[in-house]
């Protein structure tokens, strides 16, 4: 193990290390802690310049309720859910199929097609912006929930296929081979042999795509206009304009926007990290 385990350097070093950890953590998360403290302050504190010291009173309930009563935050949150959930379902489903095809069958264009999905996943959004926006306007999908989740699902299919293909490729191929010898139909092999084995990959992709799409800001600006279809990320920006100098409310709204991915991450940490670090180990 590298670096050498701290226990081996004696009890003093270990105690020092353990004492330093929380200090390092507080320094690392200082911006976040500061904004959290702001979000539970009263307006009076903000106005009197007490933004760093201990809050004179705790206004946690008032501030967080104010975000919902004084703005369309609830609507934005619901929109975000309505955009992310279908995106996750569609893109993961499509990627299971495509990943299976690219991993199991040996055909000439398998690798070029795979690279097409990989490359598509890396391109800048701006190269898609004008045509996708124009297409959405033409088809009546502009400023709708569906217009956003259809695009996200298609775009995320690239990443999901990359992930699924590599995951399936790492499974023992004998399983498929022997099922074929038994005369099992191809779609049954997919459904009964491979799909149960890729459950961890599905879980990892589900949390990752949820987080990516929840945190999207660019497409929310390109594909929406009014409040009716805006997700919370774009909503928070709108609130920022509305709550000028009401930093306690802006902070509360930002933290609210961050909660779902954070909860998702802590609940499914193992899958989340396995997904992000795919390929980091040979």
């Amino acid at each position, binding site marked *: 193990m*590298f670096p050498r385990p701290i226990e081996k350097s004696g009890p003093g070093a270990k105690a020092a290390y353990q004492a330093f950890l929380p200090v390092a953590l507080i320094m690392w998360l200082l911006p976040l802690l500061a904004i959290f403290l702001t979000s539970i302050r009263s307006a009076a504190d903000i106005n009197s310049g007490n933004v760093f010291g201990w809050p004179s009173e705790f206004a946690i309930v008032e501030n967080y309720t104010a975000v919902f009563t004084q703005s369309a935050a609830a609507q934005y949150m619901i929109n975000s859910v309505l955009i992310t959930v279908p995106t996750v379902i569609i893109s993961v489903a499509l990627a299971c199929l495509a990943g299976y095809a690219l991993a199991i069958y040996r055909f000439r264009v398998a690798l070029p097609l795979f690279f097409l999905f990989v490359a598509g996943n890396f391109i*800048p959004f701006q190269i898609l912006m004008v045509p996708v926006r124009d297409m959405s306007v033409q088809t009546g999908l502009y400023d709708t929930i569906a217009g956003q989740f259809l695009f996200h699902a298609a775009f995320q299919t690239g990443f999901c296929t990359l992930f699924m293909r590599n995951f399936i490729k790492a499974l023992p191929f004998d399983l498929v081979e022997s099922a074929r010898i038994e005369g099992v139909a191809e779609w049954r092999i997919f459904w009964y042999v491979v799909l149960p084995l890729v459950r961890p990959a599905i879980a990892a992709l589900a949390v990752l795509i949820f987080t990516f799409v929840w945190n999207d800001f660019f497409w929310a600006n390109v594909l929406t206009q009014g409040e009716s279809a805006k997700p919370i990320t774009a909503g928070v920006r709108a609130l920022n304009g509305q709550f000028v100098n009401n930093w306690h409310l802006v902070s509360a709204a930002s933290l609210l926007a961050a909660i779902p991915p*954070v909860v998702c991450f802590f609940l499914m940490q193992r899958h989340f990290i396995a997904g992000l670090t795919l390929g980091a180990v040979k």
Partner: protein
Amino acid sequence: MTHAVLPDTNSRPEPGWLKRNKLAIAPWIFLIPALIFFSIYVVIPIFESLWLSLYKWNGLYDVDGNSTAVWVGFENYAKLWYDPNFWTSLRNNIAWLILYMLAVPLGLFIALFLNQTVTGMRFYKSMFFFPFVISQVVVGLIFGWFYNPDFGVVGTLWKAVFCEETTNILGNTTFVCSRPAPDILSSPEWATYGIIAAGLWPQIAYCMILYLTGLNNVAADQIEAARLDGAKGWKMLWYVVVPQLKPATFIAVVVTVIGALRSFDMIAIMTQGGPFGSTNVLSHYMFEVAISEYGERYGYGSSVATVLFGIMLFFISYFLWRMYQDEKGGR
């Protein structure tokens, strides 16, 4: 038996064309939904954008539903060449690319710091990873406030160091400062660096988690062998550990390059490209010219997007080439 018996192929009826070719057809059935969907929203729009960059278009259609775009050839690119905002954006993109790379070594050092097994380590590792999970919009807002010279963390710390609290005749408290607190995001010189620093925060967390996973899989016997040979500290890190972390480093570099060139959210939140366009990058400038500034200039925006795409393509080709080498070696 005196002669070999040929397998009797005609005892059963010849299977249909579909059956005989099922291994050739099946992959396409599985691929088609993803392929169609991906082509409509990703592959075809890329070519449309490249094509549109040769037109002048405000995004409108005439009454018959025909696009009002006018062919201008390379005029948009000629205009780009003389557009100072374009060059500022490009320069900022390069600054992002270079400085964002700091996330890789910094992520490695935090990973080394955290790669211990004392109690509660799992908790610390996930808390250190935390900034990556929250949206860049939120990170942008947090830092916008963090940098605020009047009541942000920077301003407050500044007051503590450089200012003296005095009470004036009316009994109000005022601050007398030897130097005014820096307003990072309003300074054309410093704003970009302020945003990059904010962007590094989640990116370091990402690189850290890649390296933590990599460190977990470093071969213990090699470390022990090197230790017996007297290697330690920096030498051990550089000659024994880092080479084994190569796959993690590759991914860290890939995601950092992509992240640097994609930076949009934080700029849109923290400065909207300002002051005076000094913090623009191509991704944000493209958005600005295409939809938010003086009506819609789709053609010009597309030419900015094409330049960004060209830069990205350079990196993508390299990444794909590396992946291709791995594929060939792997099987």
